[in-house]
C-alpha cells in the first residue's frame, strides 16, 4: 500500500470519531483565520498598526463584540460616529466656489467659508453644520470634538447642537490659536459650560430647575442625546431623585458658527466623534484596538510556536531515548544522570529567569524550553523503557546478525516502532506549549515585537478588565486558547485510539 493510500485510510478511520471531526473543523477555522490575517495585514504592518495609538484614536474604547446586540435586542452603535468636515467626497457633494465664498454641501455636512469686510478689515468666517440621524437605543460611551485650525491669528467660535425636539444646547464657545481636543465628559470638579447651559435651557423650556450638583456628574455627551421630556417628567415625578437617561431618536444638527478670524488664509475644520458601544467580531480594548486583529494574528503565532516546540521536543526525546537504549552501558548511564539533574531544576522558574536574563524573543525562547523539556521531562524515561523492549525483539537481533549499522537499526528499525505512540503525543502536547507562552505573558514576560493571545490576556488582566466588567477583553483570547487546545487534544486522543488499538479495545 502506498503512503498516500495509507494516509487516506487513516483519515477515513479517523472520520468515524466525532472528536476528531470537531478538532479538525476547529483547526481548519483557525488556519483560515491565520491566512486571513496574513493576507489582510502583512506582519510588519500589523505590528506597526497595533502599537500605534494614533491609529486607534477614533475607535470606541472597551466596545463589546457587535453580535451581542442579538442578545440585548437593542440597536447598538457599532464603531464610532465620526463627523469630520475634512472628509469631503467631491463626487457626492455640491461645491460652489468664487472669490470670497467657498461652499460645500454634502447633505450630512454643510460648510461655508466666506471672506467678509467689517470695519474696513478683512475677516474669514466659517460655518459648519453636521446633520446626524440618531436612531440607536443606546447612548454613545463617550464623545469629543477637535478643532483643527491652521492660523496666524485667534479664531473665535461657537459650537451647539439642535436636538430633534428643537432645543438648542450650547456645547462650547471661545477662542483658540491652535488645534485642540475637547472632551465631552463631566469635569472632575465644578461644572462645565454645556452642563450649565443645559440647566438654563431646561429651566427656560419646562420651568423646572435641575440640581446642578447632579447635572455636573453627567457627561455632556449624554446631555446632547438625552430625551429631555422623559428626563424632566421623571425628575418632577420623583422630586428630583431620579434622572432618567434615555436617548432621543431623530435628527440632530451640530452647528459650528460665528467662527471668525483675522487671518484670511486660515483653514478651520471641526471633527466630532461619538464613540460607540460595540465593534467588530471581538470588540476593542482600552485603547480602542480591534481585538479581532490580535486574535487573528495570534493564531499563526500560537500554532507555529506550539507545533515547533512540541515536534522538536518529541523528536529529540525519541532520538536520545533510542540512542540511550541502543548503546546502553556508560552512555545510557550518563543520559540517565543528566535526566535526573534536570528533574531537580524546576521548569517554569528557570525559563522565566533565562528569559529575563537574555531578553529572549518568542523564537529564541524555544532554544530554552526545548532542551529543558527534553532533558527534564518524564518522556525520556518512558521512551527509553519502550526502546529497551523493542531492542530485545527478534527482528532487531536479525538485523544485528546480518551486520546492519547502528544508525540503520536505530532509525530504520527501532524508531518506526514508536511512531504510533509518538504522533498522538506530539499533537496532544501542542496546547501545553501554547499555554506556556500565555503563562509567561501573564507574568509580564512577552516578546515586545509580537501580538500574542497571552499578551492580550495579560493586558486585559493588568487593566482590571474583570473588575471593570469588560469580559469580552478576557474572553476573546481565552476562548481562542480554549478552542485551539480542545482541537489539538481531540485530534491527539483520536489518533492515539487509532494507532494503539489496545487502548481502543479497552
Amino acid at each position: 500500500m502506498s503512503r498516500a493510500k495509507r494516509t487516506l485510510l487513516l483519515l477515513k478511520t479517523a472520520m468515524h470519531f466525532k472528536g476528531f471531526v470537531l478538532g479538525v473543523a476547529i483547526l481548519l477555522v483557525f488556519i483560515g483565520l491565520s491566512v486571513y490575517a496574513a493576507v489582510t495585514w502583512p506582519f510588519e504592518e500589523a505590528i506597526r498598526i497595533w502599537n500605534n495609538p494614533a491609529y486607534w484614536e477614533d475607535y470606541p474604547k472597551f466596545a463589546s463584540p457587535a453580535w451581542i446586540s442579538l442578545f440585548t435586542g437593542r440597536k447598538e452603535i457599532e464603531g464610532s460616529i465620526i463627523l469630520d468636515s475634512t472628509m469631503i467626497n467631491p463626487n457626492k457633494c455640491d461645491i460652489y466656489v468664487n472669490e470670497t465664498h467657498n461652499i460645500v454641501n454634502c447633505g450630512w455636512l454643510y460648510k461655508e467659508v466666506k471672506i467678509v469686510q467689517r470695519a474696513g478689515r478683512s475677516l474669514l468666517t466659517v460655518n459648519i453644520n453636521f446633520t446626524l440621524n440618531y436612531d440607536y437605543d443606546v447612548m454613545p460611551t463617550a464623545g469629543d470634538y477637535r478643532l483643527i485650525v491652521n492660523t496666524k491669528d485667534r479664531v473665535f467660535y461657537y459650537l451647539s447642537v439642535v436636538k430633534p425636539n428643537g432645543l438648542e444646547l450650547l456645547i462650547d464657545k471661545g477662542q483658540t490659536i491652535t488645534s485642540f481636543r475637547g472632551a465631552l465628559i463631566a469635569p472632575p470638579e465644578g461644572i462645565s459650560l454645556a452642563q450649565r447651559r443645559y440647566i438654563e435651557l431646561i429651566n427656560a423650556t419646562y420651568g423646572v430647575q435641575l440640581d446642578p450638583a447632579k447635572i455636573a456628574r453627567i457627561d455632556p455627551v449624554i446631555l446632547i442625546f438625552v430625551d429631555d421630556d422623559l428626563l424632566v417628567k421623571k425628575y418632577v415625578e420623583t422630586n428630583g431623585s431620579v434622572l432618567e437617561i434615555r436617548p432621543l431618536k431623530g435628527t440632530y444638527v451640530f452647528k459650528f458658527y460665528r467662527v471668525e478670524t483675522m487671518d484670511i488664509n486660515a483653514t478651520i475644520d471641526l471633527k466630532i466623534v461619538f464613540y460607540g458601544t460595540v465593534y467588530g467580531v471581538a470588540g476593542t480594548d482600552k485603547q480602542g484596538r480591534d481585538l479581532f486583529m490580535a486574535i487573528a494574528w495570534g493564531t499563526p503565532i500560537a500554532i507555529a510556536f506550539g507545533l515547533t516546540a512540541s515536534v522538536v521536543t518529541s523528536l529529540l526525546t525519541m532520538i536520545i531515548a533510542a540512542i540511550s537504549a541502543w548503546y546502553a552501558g556508560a552512555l545510557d548511564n550518563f543520559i540517565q544522570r543528566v535526566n535526573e539533574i534536570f528533574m531537580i531544576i524546576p521548569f517554569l522558574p528557570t525559563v522565566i529567569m533565562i528569559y529575563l536574563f537574555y531578553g529572549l524573543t518568542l523564537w529564541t525562547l524555544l532554544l530554552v524550553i526545548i532542551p529543558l523539556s527534553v532533558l527534564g521531562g518524564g518522556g525520556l524515561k518512558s521512551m527509553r523503557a519502550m526502546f529497551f523492549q523493542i531492542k530485545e525483539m527478534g527482528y532487531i537481533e536479525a538485523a544485528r546478525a546480518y551486520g546492519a549499522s547502528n544508525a540503520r537499526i536505530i532509525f530504520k528499525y527501532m524508531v518506526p516502532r514508536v511512531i504510533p505512540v509518538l504522533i498522538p503525543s506530539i499533537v496532544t502536547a501542542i496546547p501545553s506549549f501554547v499555554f506556556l507562552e500565555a503563562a509567561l505573558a501573564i507574568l509580564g514576560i512577552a516578546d515586545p515585537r509580537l501580538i500574542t493571545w497571552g499578551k492580550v490576556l495579560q493586558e486585559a488582566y493588568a487593566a482590571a478588565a474583570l473588575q471593570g466588567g469588560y469580559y469580552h477583553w478576557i474572553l476573546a483570547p481565552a476562548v481562542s486558547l480554549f478552542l485551539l487546545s480542545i482541537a489539538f487534544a481531540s485530534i491527539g486522543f483520536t489518533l492515539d485510539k487509532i494507532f494503539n488499538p489496545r487502548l481502543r479495545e479497552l
Partner: protein
Amino acid sequence: MFSRYLAIRGISLAVALVVGMLIVVYIANLGGRVDEIVRNEIQFNINNLRQNRDYMMRLQASCEALCGGYNETCVKACIDKHFEDLQWQEIVNRGLDKPFEVRLFYYLRDALTLRLGVAMWLHSDAGSSQVWDIISERLPNTVILFTTTNLVIFFVELFLGLMLSRKYGTIYDKIVVSAAPLSSMPGWFYGLFLLIIFAFILRILPDGGMYTPNPEDYPALKALYEFNYSLGRVVDLLWHMILPMMSWLVAYIPIGVYYYRTFFLMFSTEEFVEYARARGVPPRIIERRYILRVTLPPIITSLVLTIISSWMGAIITERVFRWPGLGTVLAMAIERNDAPVIIGIIAIYAYLLVISVFVLDLIYGIVDPRVRVIGGERR
C-alpha cells in the same frame, strides 16, 4: 547486592543534586550579573552619602583634626580614602572581593547545607530578611491551598479511575473519555472563567486573596467573626479557597481519571488476573489483591511526587487569584533578581525530591526483588 544497588542509587542522586543546584545557582545569579547590580547599588549608596551635607561636614571636621588644621590636599585625600574604605568594606561584607567563579561554589555550599542566608531585597511581612523566615511565612499558605488541592485531585482520580475500570464501556466511561481533552488546559486558565462567572457576574464568591479585607462589609461574615474570631477566619479562608481549588479540579481531574482508568484496565487484562477470574475469585478481592497491590508502587510514587511538586506553589494560579503563597515569593524574587531567595526555595525542593526518590527506591527494593536485580546485576 541490595546495599550496592542502594549505594549506587544514593551516589547518583547526590551527584544529580549537586550538579542540578550548581546550575540553579548559576542561573539565579544570572551568570554573575547580580554581582554587577549589587556593586552598582553600593556605588549608588556611597554617592548618596557624598551628597549628604551633615555627613560631609562631620567627615571634613574629623579629617581636618587628623591633618592638624586645614590642608586642602591632605583633607581631600583623607575624604577620598574614607569613601574608598567604606566601599571596599561593603564589597568584602557582601563577599564580592572574590571572583564570581569562586563564589559560585560558596553559594553552592551554602545551598547544599541549607544555610539560606539573607535575602537581597525581599523581606517577610513581619520584616525579616532571613530567607528561612520569608519561606516559612508563606509556606503554610501554599500548603493549605495547593497540597490540599493536589491530594483531593489525587484521591478523586484514583477512586473514580478504579470505579470506571469496572464500568468499562458504560455511559459514565464514555463521558470521562470524551472529557479528557479538557485537561489540555492548565488550572489557572479555568480560574479565569470561574472568576468571571462566580466572582464577577454572579458575585457569590470572592475574586481572590486569602481573607476578606473588610469583613464589616458583609453582615453574615461579620456576625461569624464576632461570634468566634478563629471560626470566622477558617470559614473565610475556606470561602476563598473554593475558586482556586475548583479551577484545578476541573483542569486536572478528567485526564487523571482517564489515565487511572486505562492503567487499571491494562492490569485487569493481565493473564494472572484473568486466571484468578476464571478460578472464580470474587471481583472485590481481585481488585484489592491482584490489581491494587501490583499497581501500588507507581501510585505511591505519583502521590509522593504530587505532594512535593505542590511545595513551590503555582506561580500563575497564585497570580490570577492573588494568593500569597510561595509561588508569589518565587515570582517576586525572580523579577527582582533576588538570588538567595530563588536558590533557597529551589534547594529545599531539590532536597525533598531527591530524598523521596531515594526512600521510594529503598522501599521498592525491599518489597519487590525485581528492582534489585535490574539495578544491581545488569550493570
